[in-house]
């Protein structure tokens, strides 16, 4: 046995890699962060009143010779909207990452597992039953949305549990059927409560129309908690994608970890829905692009997906308010135009297998 030979060979290999691997990834995250800032800047500058870079800078810094119109457009209309779009995009993308890892399924996203439509139902129920406004500054909307969402996700999970083998394909089918049904109930509720048609549109296809800072203030704390929780769970997520038995053998309390991840991801998705309606496909596309670019390790996957989701939604919102201006297109239509083909491509690339 040539143990010495092998040792020598190994020692030659050793200096090959080291701490160097980490920096480029941090660099990528920083780059995406800059990309997000640039996207937000572009989004607030463009529209029916377009703002030149110099005026934008003046308005952003409250300079003395900033035009009052620009100030109003920027600070009261466009900036809160863009910030909310970024927050919601990040929330949906990180929820998508978590659901995909948890269900080990490439097609899982907040809509497919039932979270989005459950949240929409919870929120519209709260609205039509009249719990709509002011409640110690917190507002019942996120909570109602969360209750609806968690109910729907658990329902989809229970329905998919067929005997010993909870097949991922049946989870997807159960989730999709449930989502369609819940969306129908949402439309019915809104019409029954004499809400105008566009209101139903806004819930079912999403919109950031007229969102001001109060929405951002309400959504941000919830989303921050969800995001931090998921980021903390990045290693358990890695272990879970490697298989339940592996995770358990490495000492993970699989059931607890699952519950925490489901709760955080569902909360993120439901807060997003509560403040902007159901926006499809962001939670599906962003994680896949990030995974292709940065690998499967969740420590990097979560921040990159979140940033990509945020960038995606900021641009989608810009498209939504400029494409048919002065009419606003529901943002879900824009994301569906982008995401639908991508979803079909994924399905095709997987050879029709949903597992």
């Amino acid at each position, binding site marked *: 046995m040539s143990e010495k030979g092998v040792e020598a060979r190994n020692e030659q290999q050793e200096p090959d890699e080291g701490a160097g691997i980490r920096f480029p990834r941090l660099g990528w995250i920083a780059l995406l962060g800059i990309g997000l800032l640039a996207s937000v800047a572009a989004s607030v500058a463009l529209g029916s009143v377009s703002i030149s870079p110099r005026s934008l800078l003046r308005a952003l810094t409250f300079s003395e010779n900033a035009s009052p119109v620009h100030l109003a457009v920027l600070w009261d209309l466009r900036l809160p909207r863009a910030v909310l779009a970024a927050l919601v995009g990040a929330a949906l993308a990180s929820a998508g990452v978590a659901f995909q890892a948890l269900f080990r399924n490439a097609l899982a996203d907040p809509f497919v597992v039932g979270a989005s439509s459950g949240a929409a139902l919870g929120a519209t129920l709260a609205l039509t039953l009249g719990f709509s406004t002011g409640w110690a500054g917190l507002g019942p909307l996120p909570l109602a949305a969360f209750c609806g969402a968690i109910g729907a996700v658990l329902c989809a999970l229970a329905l998919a549990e067929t005997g010993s083998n909870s097949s991922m394909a049946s989870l997807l089918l159960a989730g999709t059927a449930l989502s369609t049904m819940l969306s129908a109930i949402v439309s019915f509720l809104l019409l029954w409560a004499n809400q105008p048609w566009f209101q139903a549109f806004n819930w079912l296809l999403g919109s950031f129309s007229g969102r001001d800072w109060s929405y951002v203030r309400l959504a941000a704390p919830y989303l921050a908690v969800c995001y931090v929780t998921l980021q903390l*769970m990045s290693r358990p997520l890695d*272990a879970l994608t*490697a298989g339940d038995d592996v995770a*358990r053998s490495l*000492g*993970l309390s699989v059931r607890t970890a699952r519950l925490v991840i489901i709760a955080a991801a569902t909360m993120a998705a439901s807060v997003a829905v509560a403040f902007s309606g159901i926006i499809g496909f962001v939670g599906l596309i962003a994680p896949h692009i990030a995974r292709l670019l940065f690998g499967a390790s969740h420590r990097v996957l979560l921040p990159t997906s979140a940033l990509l989701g945020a960038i995606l939604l900021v641009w989608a919102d810009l498209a939504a308010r400029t494409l048919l201006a002065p009419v606003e297109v529901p943002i879900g239509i824009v994301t569906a135009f982008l995401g639908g083909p991508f979803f079909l491509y994924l399905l095709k690339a997987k050879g029709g297998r949903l597992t």
Partner: protein
Amino acid sequence: MSVRLEAVNLSCGYGGPPVFKGVDFTVQSGEICALIGPNGSGKTTLLHALDRLVRPMEGEVRLDDVSIWNCGPREVAARVALAPQRAATAIWPLTVRETIQLARAPHRGWLASYTSEDVKVVMHAMARFGLTNLAGRSMATLSGGEVRRVLLARALAQAPAVLLLDEPLTYLDLHYQAEILTLVRSLSREEGIAVVLTLHDLALAALCADRVVLLANGRICGQGPPGEILTPEVLTPVYGDDLEVIQHSGKSVPIVLPRVRAR
């Protein structure tokens, strides 16, 4: 650091009738114990029960006299490591390094960052199995033998007191078979690690094990030094008479070979 892992009157199964019943079995620091038996005799199930993956139907598994089901999973994982027979095919495979790094979680906690000591242990485990050059490769692109080496390296990086190896030599070429048997022996002799491994090749079992445990028909049919168990009298009732036992001339170990009959 001495350790003692013990199965007491253990019965395990998956809902239906038990795979095995009334198994009593102990392994201690510095001991290498080979589990042998026909296909489907419950060797893997026994390893999984020892690793706290399968809850016993009856009896218990004790780690230093404490039932492992009274410990948390992390507590057990910090002392007992399992290298499974094959890697579950992950839909989004991690890299080799990321896969092996997961083994540090039981020591570091699932939320904390890895320390420089963790990095050292992982590098060492990779070097030991010739994986350093593959560190950045995706698990999906590895050959069967490379995957096996990653699983073994992960178990080693877990720095366990008890090492459970499920068919550690399958898919490996002679070089790595020898390497792993040597490693197992040095881990047990120098570091006092208790090793339980399942093997199909009885000659390899004879070569490396202090004790051989024969599992068949849902119970233990015999355990003892290789010379006592690897005899036609003990093996024939289990494997049938299609085998031949010869003595290795240089080493005092029995070699069991399948008998090829003329048709």
